[in-house]
């Protein structure tokens, strides 16, 4: 076989040599030779043009042809988020998919966010836009939450409420910085330290700010152990931090079962706008406590919340495009987010101090800072700061009360924002006076029916 191929090859070579000589004989004159040379060079030029045009076409289909400075900056931001998540372990379960989503969305010509091109991330984002993912996350959060410490010491509910002051102070500051009322409300909710709620509200009130708000909320949640302790130490004395609290009383199983049902009925009759968040939170908790839905509880607290976290975080990351993220507004939101966290921590602590005075020193004010949600990290910070003052001080379970109360408080705050700024848009400029009357009516209706 090899021999045959060799013979055929030799024959072809001999034929080519003979043909060239014959051509040379025929082209004996210089003019003909020039013509041939000219034809050859034209052919080469044409070939070079074809090749360069082909390469040009190939280059035009690559991302390099369409990448701009904005995309490069966003890719660097995405890589920074991935670095912080992987190397520094800042909320890695969220920042890894958020960072990767941002990376995918900013690589040009991938069309990952294009609805017309059938982009994958576009369909993930529909889950955010149609308000499916955040309530499903809340379902998982409910299944993971033990309301026992709150039920054992219901007074801690008010610490969760007080921490929401951070949301509203930030709203006022955001308005002063030039944001619209709807945008300011969406930014203020960062102070609630509750990612799904922040995304839910941002999508409803200011979808154009979804990316920066989500990134600020999740970044600061991971920085709670750094942000909170200085404020806690500033607002409390050494003596106050050393206060030991009595052991929590046990709670009946029946109370734990009835609680999520009661919260759903009470809160949603008062604030129907908060139904997706509070409804799902309490359903998840009912799965946990009722004892007859073990499979649903196990699925909700593990697989479901993990799957939805991937979809939600990728969708949020994909919303971080250069044109929507690289603005002055983003920088303002990042600063306002930090301010919101600080104000919420201070609000919880100050009411904690008031409760301490009212109870004759039986409540450690440090548990007030856990009212900012961020379950369970804020409660751990209360424990840590308390233990620094007195190593025998165990505040963790006491701090879990305001911590879970903060989740309910933030959901209620979101419900209030939606009632005021949602589709009915009561708070458009010029309607403040009308709103005062409506607000007064609303409060009257709560207390006097």
């Amino acid at each position, binding site marked *: 076989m090899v021999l045959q191929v060799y013979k055929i090859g030799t024959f072809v070579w001999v034929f080519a040599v003979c043909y060239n000589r014959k051509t040379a004989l025929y082209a004996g004159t210089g003019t003909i030779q020039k013509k041939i040379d000219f034809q050859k060079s034209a052919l080469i030029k044409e070939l070079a043009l074809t090749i360069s045009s082909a390469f040009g076409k190939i280059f035009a289909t690559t991302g390099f042809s369409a990448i701009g400075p904005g995309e490069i900056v966003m890719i660097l931001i995405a890589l920074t988020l991935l670095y912080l998540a992987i190397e520094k372990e800042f909320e890695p379960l969220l920042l890894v998919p958020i960072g990767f989503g941002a990376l995918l969305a900013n690589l040009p010509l991938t069309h990952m966010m294009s609805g017309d091109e059938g982009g994958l991330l576009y369909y993930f984002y529909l889950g955010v836009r149609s308000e499916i993912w955040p309530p499903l996350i809340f379902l998982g959060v409910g299944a993971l939450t033990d309301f026992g410490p709150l039920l054992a010491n*219901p007074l801690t509910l008010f610490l969760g409420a007080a921490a*929401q002051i951070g949301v509203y102070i930030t709203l006022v500051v955001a308005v002063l910085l030039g944001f619209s*009322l709807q945008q300011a409300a969406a930014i203020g909710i960062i102070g609630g330290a509750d990612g799904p709620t922040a995304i839910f509200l941002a999508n409803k009130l200011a979808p154009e700010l979804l990316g920066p708000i989500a990134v600020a909320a999740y970044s600061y949640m991971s920085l709670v152990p750094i942000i909170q302790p200085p404020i806690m130490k500033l607002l409390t004395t050494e003596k106050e931090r050393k206060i030991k609290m009595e052991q929590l009383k046990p709670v009946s199983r029946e109370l734990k079962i009835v609680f999520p049902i*009661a919260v759903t009925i*009470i809160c949603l009759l008062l604030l129907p706008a908060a139904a997706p968040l509070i409804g799902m939170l309490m359903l998840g908790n009912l799965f946990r406590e009722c004892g007859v839905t073990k499979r649903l509880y196990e699925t909700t607290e593990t697989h479901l919340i993990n799957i939805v976290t991937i979809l939600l975080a990728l969708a949020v990351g994909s919303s971080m495009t250069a044109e929507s993220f690289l603005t002055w507004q983003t920088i303002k939101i990042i600063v306002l987010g930090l301010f919101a966290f600080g104000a919420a921590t201070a609000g919880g602590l100050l009411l904690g101090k008031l409760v301490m005075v009212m109870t004759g020193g039986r409540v450690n004010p440090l548990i007030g800072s856990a009212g900012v949600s961020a379950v369970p990290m804020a409660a751990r910070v209360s424990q840590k700061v308390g233990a620094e003052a007195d190593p025998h001080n165990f505040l963790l379970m006491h701090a879990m009360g305001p911590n879970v109360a903060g989740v*309910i408080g933030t959901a209620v705050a979101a419900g*209030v924002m939606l009632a*005021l700024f949602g589709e009915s848009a009561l*708070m458009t*400029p010029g309607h403040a006076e009308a709103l005062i009357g409506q607000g007064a009516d609303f409060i009257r209706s709560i207390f006097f029916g």
Partner: protein
Amino acid sequence: MENLTAALVVTVIGMSVIFAVLAILYVSILSLERIFPYKAPAQTAGDDTETVAVIQAGITAYLKRRPG
């Protein structure tokens, strides 16, 4: 300025509503606590020292009588 006024009004209304809702929840929890009070689990044989002593004595006696 109008926006600022509106933001301040929202702050007052928002915090009032949150405290009102959570106050209602507080009262509800206190009421539910009365309806569903915590009951310590009933004593089992394992908690009864007399029963435990009788069973232990019985086991010891059986082991002594057991051949081999």
